[in-house]
């Protein structure tokens, strides 16, 4: 070309593909909260990390009701830059009967309105996870998306890498971090954990409704970035099943969903019908009325507590987050995000220390389960293990009799007629005692449930 510069730089052609076996110190499977936290922690410790995600971007495959708990994330990244939706200004716990009654306890401590907002924010995982992974990339992590890990590679008993669904798809590294979430097919295929018992898995379905910001502010009595998290129990929330429903406010959308044992779904209670019934309950319907449904999704939540936790370390591998069953689903609490990040963080630290010592066997990685044991994660899981056992005994009472009795008692107590207030109180007490099995029954139950709110 006569008019172009003669010095134009020609492209370098590289036909030969380099081989990246053992080019990275660690491979992380899954760019969710736990995987990204682990990758970021390791990169900060100077390791070369390869983060593999099956979705087109982190978060695209993520189903999530919505409250992200940020105490640990805050230590890792500047949370002020994160795409957060609203902070949780109000929590409500509500009993719904199948007849349309609602009995609720709501709390709005003024402290939650001040920074750091009790470290509780609604987020859209699609946006948040992508942002979080970007922070990891900035710290030096290599993120490769649209790549599904199908199995681990072994050398004897030691895990030495992963196999992916891509051509030329095997890659080796000293440590593999399994952070694949609740649907942990790789860990199961590799025999690192058993398929969870049906009782230990909840199914969750969720819908997202689009409403405008002002409508949400008005309906939930919110201002600015304030948001609400409502939790529902009882027959009106999930029918005969063991579980609950939730409503969370985002900026311009509302997430509505139910979560209950897969066991109950298997016995014929379909997720669609359950969600439908919940959304048409008179206590819930007005919250989403007129909203346009923009998303429907279903997902599994492990909820076996500490008892169902698999081994967390192997020669050459660790398991973190939901894949390790680190979720608290007690009815009052549905938390996994904070434990996912906490476990990723401890795993990342332990791996960095082990690599520094030039070892990656199980014993060298043992600091991870040890540190987790000392953290709030395992402690919380233990604490709530009893809840599942309690639920099993008190299902009928908790989810059917109590909501109805509460509603009846309220009706009696506040009745406007010509008998005395005292007569109303007596009648109300009568209703509740009936349901709880008299004074002795009530006392026993109160004792069993004392830990629920502690």
């Amino acid at each position, binding site marked *: *070309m006569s008019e*172009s510069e003669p010095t134009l730089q*020609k*492209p*370098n052609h590289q036909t030969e593909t380099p081989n990246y076996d053992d080019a990275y110190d660690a491979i992380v499977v899954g760019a969710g909260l736990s995987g990204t936290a682990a990758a970021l922690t390791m990169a900060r410790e100077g390791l070369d990390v390869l983060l593999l995600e099956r979705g087109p971007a982190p978060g695209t495959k993520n189903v999530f009701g919505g409250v992200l708990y940020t105490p640990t994330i805050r230590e890792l990244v500047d949370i002020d830059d994160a795409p957060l939706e609203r902070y949780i200004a109000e929590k409500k716990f509500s009993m719904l009967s199948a007849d349309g009654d609602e009995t609720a306890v709501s709390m709005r401590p003024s402290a939650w309105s001040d920074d750091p907002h009790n470290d509780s924010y609604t987020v859209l995982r699609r946006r948040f996870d992508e942002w979080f992974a970007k922070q990891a990339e900035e710290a030096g992590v290599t993120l*490769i998306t649209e790549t599904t890990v199908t199995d681990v590679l072994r050398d004897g008993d030691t895990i030495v890498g992963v196999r992916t669904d891509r051509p030329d798809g095997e890659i080796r590294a000293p440590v593999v971090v399994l952070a694949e979430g609740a649907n942990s097919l790789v860990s199961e295929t590799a025999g690192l954990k058993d398929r969870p018992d049906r009782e230990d898995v909840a199914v969750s379905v969720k819908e997202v409704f689009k409403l405008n910001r002002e409508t949400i502010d008005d309906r939930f009595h919110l201002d600015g970035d304030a948001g609400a998290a409502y939790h529902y129990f009882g027959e009106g929330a999930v029918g005969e099943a063991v579980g609950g429903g939730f409503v969370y406010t985002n900026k311009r959308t509302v997430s509505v969903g139910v979560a209950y044992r897969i066991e109950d779904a298997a016995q014929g209670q379909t997720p669609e019908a359950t969600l439908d019934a919940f959304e048409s309950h008179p206590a819930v319907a007005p919250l989403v009325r007129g909203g346009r449904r923009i998303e429907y999704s279903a997902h599994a939540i492990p909820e076996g507590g500490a008892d169902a936790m698999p081994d967390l370390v192997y020669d050459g591998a660790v398991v973190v987050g939901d894949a390790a069953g680190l979720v608290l689903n007690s009815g009052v609490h549905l938390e996994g995000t904070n434990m996912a990040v906490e476990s990723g963080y401890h795993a990342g630290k332990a791996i960095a220390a082990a690599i520094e010592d030039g070892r990656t066997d199980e014993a060298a990685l043992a600091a991870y389960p040890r540190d987790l044991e000392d953290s709030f994660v395992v402690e919380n899981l233990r604490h709530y293990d009893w809840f599942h056992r309690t639920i099993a005994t008190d299902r009928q009472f908790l989810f059917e009799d109590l909501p109805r009795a509460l509603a009846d008692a309220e009706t009696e107590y506040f009745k406007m007629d010509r008998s005395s207030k005292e007569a109303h109180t007596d009648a109300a007490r009568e209703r509740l005692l009936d349901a709880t099995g008299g004074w002795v029954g009530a006392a026993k139950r109160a004792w069993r449930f004392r830990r629920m709110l502690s």
Partner: protein
Amino acid sequence: MTDGWNIVVCVKQVPDADDVTIDPDTGTLNRSDAPAVLNSPDRNAVESALELRAAVGGTVTAITMGPPVAKAVLQTAVGAGADGGVLLTDRAFGGSDTWPTSLALARAAAELDADVVICGEESTDSSTGQVPPGIAAHNGWSQLTYVESLEPRPDEGVLVGKRDVEGGYERVAAQLPVVVAMEFGANVPRPAGLHRKIFAETEFEPVEWTASDLGIEEQVGLANSPTKVGGMDTASPVERERVVVDSVDDLYEHIEEVV
């Protein structure tokens, strides 16, 4: 042509169609939210470039014109197996319509001594299909459009394209250099190999050329684009009448009514 052919493949970055929304109030495309991805017909272009390289030898160079982030589509092409990439990026290119876009690509292809330039059928965001013929016109090269498959004849310096035409197909032999527009869906694009993908996204760097590098700074951009956008309108969907008829006679009657 003993070393095989210099194959150039044109790849464009477009907003992810799944994520593009139309603002119902203004009628404009909401492109900013949508992540940018490789124009999917260009996957067919990349695949046939790689197949051509396998058949005749040589190299595949991916080129794109766009902002610096358009590097991502070059990475996609290199991940699939292209040998290298060129990013045409310059503020001067901003607002270019198909005329200057094809001029820039044409000059770059000439600069690369291209024997074959392979494009996609059309882009998913503007879908004019004008760029491939534009490249051929600017350079005075032969062109093959709506190509289903390619058959190289390196000894004769000819590329034969099987073209999809109404009622069948035709086979056209074109002298090199030639610009090809592959039909969308003409082949099954190969997935990137894992190690190649890692290479493309970590180590591969495209060279960057500006408008003045190509000597066309006075011929590109909005000012040199003949397209003038008069206005935008949203078309409201028209509810179709659905009628099920039982017999041919009924159908005839219905048609008669309408006509």
